[in-house]
């Protein structure tokens, strides 16, 4: 089985998010970048599926050279090889077009992405790639198993879950529950250095939308500390008007 895992290079979850002075760009200085946590889950599941088989995992990232340490980490976790589409990722549409273009020239059985990236929270790439390749896609996948070429998928729905099945190939956006993220061991880190990391030029993509500015949330007011629950209930009723 050939699996393509799409990884995004995102600010660490503990990062403070700030912008340049005119609020048009995210301020990257001093920010640690990591593999998007949901993509790590996808990668971990791909490693589980290919372990002890002749299957392969290709990781793909759309990014400039600064993302290579993130890609190497994915190789250390267990990917077979990697592809970097050499372009700054403009938005999910741009990224999905690059991935779909690359995947259309290969024959992957399974394409995995995280359910969303923790920077732009798009949840878009899995469904965009599915549509662009004209194959099924399932978003917010909590679990999946493959038997021959039949895949059974659990996806999250409001207040429950839905079980679906289809034939490979398919694109899945994975969420917590699919697998536990793996920490690279020393052997993995050493072998990652010699694994293939191919750099591919980007294809042209029309601009459909863009971000014009960012803003930080307004600071919340001072907390009102209360001693008694009755006082709290009274405040929630009379002042906050939520009860």
């Amino acid at each position, binding site marked *: 089985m050939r699996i393509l895992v799409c990884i995004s290079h995102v600010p660490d979850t503990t990062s403070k998010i700030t912008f340049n002075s005119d609020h048009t760009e995210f301020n990257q200085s001093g920010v640690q970048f990591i593999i998007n946590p949901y993509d790590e889950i996808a990668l971990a599941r791909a490693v589980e599926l290919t372990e002890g088989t002749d299957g392969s995992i290709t990781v793909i990232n759309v990014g400039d050279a600064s993302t290579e340490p993130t890609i190497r980490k994915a190789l250390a976790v267990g990917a077979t090889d990697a592809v970097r589409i050499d372009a700054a990722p403009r938005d999910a549409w741009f990224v999905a077009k690059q991935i779909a273009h690359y995947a259309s020239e290969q024959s992957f059985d399974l394409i995995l992405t995280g359910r969303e990236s923790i920077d732009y929270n798009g*949840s878009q790439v899995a469904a*965009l790639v599915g*549509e662009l390749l004209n194959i099924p896609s*399932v978003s917010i996948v909590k679990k999946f198993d493959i038997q021959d070429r039949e895949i059974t998928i659990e996806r999250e729905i409001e207040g429950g879950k839905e079980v679906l099945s289809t034939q490979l190939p398919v694109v899945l956006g994975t969420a917590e529950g699919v697998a536990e993220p793996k920490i690279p061991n020393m052997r993995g880190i050493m072998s990652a250095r010699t694994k293939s990391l191919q750099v591919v030029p980007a294809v042209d993509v029309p601009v459909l*939308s863009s971000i014009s500015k960012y803003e930080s949330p307004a600071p919340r007011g001072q*907390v*009102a500390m209360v001693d008694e629950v009755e006082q709290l*209930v009274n405040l929630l009723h009379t002042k906050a008007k939520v009860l």
Partner: protein
Amino acid sequence: MAILVYVENIEGKFKKSAFEVVSYAKAIAQEQSTSVTALSIGNVADEELNKLAAFGASKIVKVDQEQLKQFINKAYAAVIAEAASKEQAHIIVLSNSFSGKGLAPRLAAKLEAGLADGAMELPTFSGNDLQVKKTAFSNKAFATEVITADKKVIAVNPNSHEPVRSEETPVIETLSPSVDAGDLNLVVKDIVRATDKISLPEAEIVVSAGRGMKGPENWAMIEELAEVLGAATACSKPVSDAGWRPHSEHVGQTGIVVSPNLYIAIGISGAIQHLAGVSSSKTIVVINKDPEAPFFKVADYGIVGDALEIVPKLTAAIQAHKAN
């Protein structure tokens, strides 16, 4: 040139988010001097469809075909695209629900439309361009997305736009879309839904608890409090990681992002990743025995004390309040 809005139903009944998106579309239609056409897919009675008119839909298009009974994003995207073409709609609005997240991008790619997902306010227009504020960095920031493409898809965050009444006289039409059998290569085998549970992303009140509860055996009091409040239950990441609660209840940067009217955080210290997922809640109450817990810094109201003692008292106090 109507605004097309896709409304989701659960077993033939519309969710609150359906009325939210119809109202949202109506506000755009008023700005653009046009009307709202609502599209419903599935087996929904006309009486239920008529409810959409009270929030601004003047035309309701229903698609009720056996093979489209279950949600298949690929097929639904094709149906919505077909309806958009028939209505000559350049703006399509839907909910950024769990299903919407898998549907909106497929629809946008099909139409080569610009997509603003996670929209949290009404858009503004300048010429042919549309601008809308959306969540970014898991609510640690917001971004203004400008859609310059001719066709525009907006996926509206649940709970970000209150349904507004705007009575219309509805016209109901039936659409029989040309669904290719190839579009149905996903099969829905089973749906398991806890019907008595309130959906977390749409809940107006969320009761959330963390490690301060000491163990899963103490969750009955959280559920009791939630029941009295008509709230959904949630938890912090360490709690779902420990298996005390299911992942589907995990709220935070790598879980579900919520924006209820009231968020009650019990025994949760307030790590930056958790705060990111709840910071857009309108009112935040924090109960924690550590007076230095970071969560108090972003709370509106706080109580210092042991959750196991305070929660039953709070439940009783709310019961007493409701009885009056």
